[in-house]
């Protein structure tokens, strides 16, 4: 008996002195000795638990008990767990620890318990794909450059209108879909039916999710939507070459796609005649804002005659060839016979009002979905895997979210959430963003918002009206607000000549050959250009450029020797033609530099050459660090190019 107790005691001693991390530490020590083989002395190595205590974050991380090579550059290519941590821009491990970013159980000293998921620790370590969710904890959600996945997730979350149904405290509700009033004057009823049944069948790139209605349900819903009086009958003429020319010249495909090719801002047009009532097309082209205040489409300023020609062309040319007339008629009849009561009930229950307003007779019931304020910190027991059998090690919050994003009805069929059918990339991004919504704040000492928060710059007055009419913000950014598609206009006053702007606004030519999206030729009036330039000149300037005015000796720049010197620099030393074109010669990556002197002010050229990233942070132009003399020569050459 005493012997048994002794044996057990020895067993306990053994168990205590052989924790699971010891094997790793022994392995690491032998690696260390190998790496230090050249040196005479064996490296020092202390066996035992390594721990970082981050008092302010209430974290105790013992990860380095096994991840021993974390800060040792010699272990850059070592196998895990010894590989050194990649550079993360000044995140001091002593200040941050590990689990605040990676998740997992920092207290644990065995692999399974630390990495998880284990039953007694809700948070397993994050998969590589979702790592960026933690960046937002300290840095906010606008960190485009350092956390592109998170930023993509944020954009997707906004653009798909998630906030319409899901409450996130501190974030404003955004209704992303178009208002649905007067539908009879807008679309054809059979199209409406097919659209509700499966939006992606008509428009593969649409952000509208599939509500997964049965055919009868779709007809009922369409019946509710399809009301609002008769549309004006418009007689549509034969498509003309004139109409086609106007359509093409106006560069509609910068935003709209035709059979999948073209821009992504507006809807596909190749089957437009099966959708739209001609009268509506006319009214949209004339003034899209009147029908939908949030529309991104500019008012072109076409004459009524031109609009009619365009509509003739659209309706005549862009028809749905696969559409069976009799089927369409049957669908129209289904909608007519649809049960409006049931339809209304469905619209309210399924949360159509999360994205659409002004549905006649339907009240917005606010956010009907689950609150998402702290979805990233939710306990796994709150998430229902439904009929899917999931192994315990896969029952994690990220896994649930990711699969839900890919197929919202995966776990249960009779849910309200429509199916967004995100691809891998989008699902990853949205999951990352959702995981970042932890509903908690880090101590002030850790908070360091990065990136640019979209500004709420809203120009008023004359300038505001012009910007609003042409929806400049759709493509251009001004003072932090607007799209990424075209040039940031924040320093436009310092950048371009007035004469060039006047010419360009009337007949825009191609500056950046590589882009699909082109500046559309608006029917802009001279007074509007005047308004624009006055504001550019007065407000959208940079004093660092303006201060150069008067310091430049124009005459010196006309010196042929200097121009020749600049030419050599351009063609030989810096080989600018690799990216830029002059007279159709050179690469297509950068803007065309033919007659650049007419476009850009000399002050701007000088300043820009000195530091290309000064204004355009993401400019891909290499920073050559040109000498002052070289800058002068280069500028002289560029201005002289005809």
């Amino acid at each position, binding site marked *: 008996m005493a012997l048994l*107790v002794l044996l057990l005691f020895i*067993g*306990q001693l053994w168990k*205590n002195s052989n924790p699971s991390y010891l094997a790793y530490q022994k392995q690491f020590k032998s690696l260390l000795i190998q790496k230090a083989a050249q040196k005479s002395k064996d490296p020092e190595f202390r066996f035992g638990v390594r721990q970082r205590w981050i008092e302010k974050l209430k974290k105790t991380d013992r990860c380095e008990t096994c991840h021993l090579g974390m800060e040792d550059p010699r272990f850059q290519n070592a196998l895990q767990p010894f590989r050194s941590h990649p550079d993360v821009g000044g995140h001091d491990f002593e200040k941050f620890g590990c689990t605040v970013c990676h998740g997992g159980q920092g207290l644990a000293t065995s692999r399974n318990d630390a990495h998880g998921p284990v039953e*007694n620790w809700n948070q397993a370590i994050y998969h590589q794909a979702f790592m960026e969710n933690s960046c937002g904890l300290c840095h906010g959600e606008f960190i485009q450059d350092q956390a592109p996945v998170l930023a993509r997730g944020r954009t997707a979350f906004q653009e798909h209108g998630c906030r319409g149904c899901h409450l996130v405290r501190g974030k404003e509700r955004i209704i992303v879909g178009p208002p649905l009033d007067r539908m009879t004057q807008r679309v054809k009823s059979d199209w409406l039916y097919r659209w509700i049944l499966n939006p992606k069948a008509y428009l593969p790139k649409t952000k509208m999710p599939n509500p997964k209605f049965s055919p009868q349900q779709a007809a009922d819903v369409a019946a509710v939507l399809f009301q609002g009086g008769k549309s004006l009958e418009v007689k549509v003429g034969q498509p003309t070459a004139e109409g086609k020319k106007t359509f093409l010249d106006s560069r509609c495909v910068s935003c709209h796609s035709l059979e999948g090719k073209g821009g992504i801002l507006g809807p596909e047009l190749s089957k437009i005649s099966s959708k739209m009532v001609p009268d509506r097309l006319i009214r949209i082209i004339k003034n899209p804002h009147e029908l939908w205040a949030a529309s991104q489409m500019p008012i072109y300023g076409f004459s009524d005659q031109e609009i009619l020609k365009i509509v003739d062309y659209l309706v005549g040319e862009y028809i749905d060839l696969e559409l069976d007339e009799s089927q369409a008629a049957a669908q129209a009849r289904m909608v007519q016979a649809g049960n409006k009561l049931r339809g209304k009930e469905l619209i309210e229950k399924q949360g159509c009002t999360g994205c659409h307003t002004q549905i006649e007779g339907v009240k917005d019931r606010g956010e009907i979905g689950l609150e998402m304020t702290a979805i990233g910190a939710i306990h796994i*027991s709150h998430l*229902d895997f439904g009929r899917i059998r999931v192994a315990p090690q896969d029952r994690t919050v990220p896994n649930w979210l990711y699969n839900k994003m890919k197929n919202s009805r995966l776990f249960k069929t009779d849910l309200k959430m429509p199916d967004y059918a995100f691809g891998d990339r989008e699902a990853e991004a949205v999951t990352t963003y959702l995981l970042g919504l932890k509903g908690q704040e880090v101590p002030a000492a850790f908070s360091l918002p990065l990136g640019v928060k979209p500004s709420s710059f809203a120009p008023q007055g004359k300038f505001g009206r012009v910007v609003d009419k042409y929806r400049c913000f759709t493509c251009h950014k001004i003072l932090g607000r607007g799209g990424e598609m075209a040039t940031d206009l924040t320093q436009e006053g310092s950048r371009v000549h007035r004469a060039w702007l006047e010419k360009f606004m009337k007949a825009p030519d191609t500056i950046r050959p590589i882009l699909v999206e082109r500046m559309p030729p608006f029917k802009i009036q001279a007074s509007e250009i005047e308004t624009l330039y006055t504001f550019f000149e007065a407000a959208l300037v940079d004093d660092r450029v303006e201060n150069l005015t008067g310091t430049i000796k124009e005459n010196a720049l006309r010196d042929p020797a200097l121009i020749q010197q600049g030419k050599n620099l351009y063609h030989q030393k810096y080989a600018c033609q690799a990216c830029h074109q002059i007279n159709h010669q050179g690469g297509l990556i950068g803007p065309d530099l033919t007659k650049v002197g007419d476009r850009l002010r000399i002050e701007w050229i000088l300043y820009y050459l000195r530091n290309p990233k000064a204004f355009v942070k993401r400019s891909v132009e290499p920073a050559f660090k040109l000498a002052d003399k070289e800058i002068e020569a280069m500028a002289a050459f560029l201005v002289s190019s005809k």
Partner: protein
Amino acid sequence: MRTDARDLLFQNRFWKSFVRKEIPVNQWLRTKILGLGLINFYLFVILTITGILLMFYYTPDTERAYQGIKDLEYVASFGLIFRNMHRYAAYLMLISVFLHMSRVFFTAEYREPREFNWVTGFVLFLCTAVMAITGYILPWDQKGYWAMTITSNVVTSAPVIGEKLKYLILGGNEVGQNALVHAYGMHVKIMPLIIGLVMGVHFWRIRKDDFLAWAVWGGHLDFKEGETPPAPQGPEQGPSLWQDIIVRELSKFLLILALVMGISLLFNAPLEEGANPSVTPSPVKAPWFLVGMQELLSWGAPFFFGVLVPNVMIVLIILIPYMDRGREGIGVWFHPSRRLANILFTAVVTVYLGLIIVGQFLRGPGWVFYWPWQSWPIH
């Protein structure tokens, strides 16, 4: 020389002082009473020692208690083993205290003059349960937190004073820091003190009552008037016999120690996620020894099943020796004259065990009944 040394070791006044007079040692050796009382004492000793060691690492603070347990588990030398031992010894003690009590009942040992020791023994049983409940809360994990929550809710079903009582126990309206400190104070200070004192009384009474009323016991046995006591079966003394008893009882200690250590080596004490008031486990289950009570409670009115039934049971059990004044069958296992009493006792015990089994294994989310082969709706 060898004999002298042995005499010195075993035949001394220390051991002799445990009994009032010479007792027939070899009769003792032949008894079939299992020695559960001593086993309880051994477990108490193990619990005290491991408990004191655990106190070094533990802080009764809602922020740090759980982390303290994790530290014990992952970094403190022998922390995991001592925690395991403490937990399993406690479970064993609950069982063996109960078995001890059952043994005393089945052999009718509670009868005069040992009525009072039945009462102290039962108080010790209740104290063990209180120790178990308070100890359950200390890791401040989900199980402990929610066990405390439902226990305190049961308390509120007491008439008139229910709410106040809950407030008193928790030190507030919610299970929080005060409740944890209260539980800790009870577990490491008040209850050990009470148990120590009552245990002293229990032992003192045992000595005073000359140990057992075992039928074959030669010494102090109660006889009816006019009966002749059986002839003493000769002096049963001598160094070897004393030594046998001591070796036997001490080897039981080693056996218990080995058992506890063995289990601790193989299985880790359960620990759930840290207490989280916003995540309610479904179903919330009481500690296993109380789960029968919870099952009982689920049947209906909390006052009836949660307060009346248990308290009536407690009073009845305490009063057993004062109600059953018979003289027959003392010290005999399952004496035929006590058939009814034995059946009644067994029935009550079986019912409670059944309740525990139903509550522990057959109740799913929402306290709905599920057979083991039926799967719970996962949510």
